[in-house]
């Protein structure tokens, strides 16, 4: 234990975000270690999606710092930002596959244009990733022909193909029919077992219990409490977390 503390894969320092007069995030600090799965829970409007979107600057932070593998995401040129974003994979609630491109092309586009991979290599990598999410056989399909769950798995493959250092999941299963949620969670579980660093914003509490290394509870733009799943779910300390958990379990029942 004498080795110097390893660099966090993702480090958020004193992050603030205001929209006009409303303070959405205040002094957020979060370190995510290599291979860790951090699960973010909280009521809607608590700022958890905004925090996630700040990590690759889809949302522009008002102040603070974000580092990926020790390299800054803020205060860099447009070009460097595009390069840094390659290291941060993002999965959206609404999938956002490109409807005019085949599944394979969806996965190869950024590989070709942003990473400048040769076509053959990009195709091979895409097929490998599609295989990983169980959709290799759909490579030539158009997004419109896929179910929501399949589209979301393609979106995951699209992000993975760029070899990101960390994957952000913004409510990846919220737009899915209940029977399709399982297939997406399975892919995420496989990813975790493969050692991927992940931050997941989601309401799938069961998944959090099973798969998360750490659960972060946000409310009103601040991190209220964090700990292992058993601490957070088994022994909530703050009143706000207890209220949230009972509300959520009430809805689930």
């Amino acid at each position, binding site marked *: 234990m004498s080795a110097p503390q390893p660099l966090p894969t993702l480090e958020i320092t004193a992050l603030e975000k205001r929209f006009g007069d409303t303070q959405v995030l205040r002094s957020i600090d979060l370190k995510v270690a290599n291979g860790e799965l951090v699960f973010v829970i909280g009521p809607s409007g608590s700022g958890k999606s905004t925090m996630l979107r700040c990590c690759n600057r889809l949302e522009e932070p008002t102040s603070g710092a974000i580092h990926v593998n020790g390299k800054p995401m803020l205060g860099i040129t447009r070009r460097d930002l595009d390069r840094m974003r390659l290291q941060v994979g*993002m999965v959206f609630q609404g999938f*956002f596959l490109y*409807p*005019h491109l085949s599944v394979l092309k969806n996965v190869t586009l950024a590989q070709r244009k942003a990473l400048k991979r040769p076509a053959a290599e990009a195709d091979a990598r895409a097929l490998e990733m599609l295989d990983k999410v169980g959709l290799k056989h759909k490579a030539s399909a158009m997004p419109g022909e896929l179910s929501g769950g399949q589209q979301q798995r393609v979106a995951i493959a699209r992000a993975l193909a760029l070899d990101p250092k960390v994957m952000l999941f913004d409510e990846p299963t919220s737009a899915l029919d209940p029977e399709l949620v399982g297939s997406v969670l399975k892919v995420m579980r496989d990813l975790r077992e493969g050692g991927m660093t992940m931050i997941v914003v989601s309401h799938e509490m069961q998944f959090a219990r099973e798969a998360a290394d750490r659960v972060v509870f946000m409310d009103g733009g601040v991190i209220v409490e964090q700990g292992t799943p058993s601490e957070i779910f088994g022994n909530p300390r703050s009143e706000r977390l207890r209220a949230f958990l009972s509300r959520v379990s009430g809805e689930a029942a």
Partner: protein
Amino acid sequence: MDFGNVFLNPDIIATYMPQMIRAVWVTIWISVLVVISGLALGAFLAGLRAYQKRWLAWPIVLFADLMRALPPLVLMLILFFGLPSLGVILSDWFVLYLVLTLVLAAFVEEIFWATLTSLPRGQWEAGAATGLSFNQVLVNVIFPQAVRTNIPQLVNRSLTISKMTAYGSVIGVKEIVSVAGSAQAFSGSATPLTMAAIAYLIIFFPAMLLSRYVENRFQYDH
């Protein structure tokens, strides 16, 4: 009075056929040039406007408004008769080509812009999140979708403006109407006018059917 002999006199048809065929070619190649450059310029302007820079957007909007609000014939006359007094002399066909290109570009810019602003924001974000630059997202993600959703509109607008090549007759471009007009005056027969109408039908009737096909084909996409 023999209706057929007035409007479809075989001798007159034979006499003016070669001229008419040349005129058809003039109409076709000016149309093709206009469509290609109008679509390209319109798409380019919509792309520029996407940068959301006020000093870029403002002139583009002004251009698009003016070109859509002014009758093309007025523009052509101003350029054709007005520019020489500034020492700029443009040939008749170039004035026709230029005005129609600008008008088509204005409409195309508006068509594209409407789609660019209405595509789900997630399409931009998905592109950005995978490390694509703004330009790359615009070219690879946004524009292909904009083209797709708007193919019927783009085809219709291109056809409408191609037919405006007929205005070339007013400034002396040797296209179909102008050739038919002088042939009518020379021959004292209405036949060249009928020939002109038929020439347009031959060129544009298939195009109309094509646009119907395209409309049905792309209707339920997206």
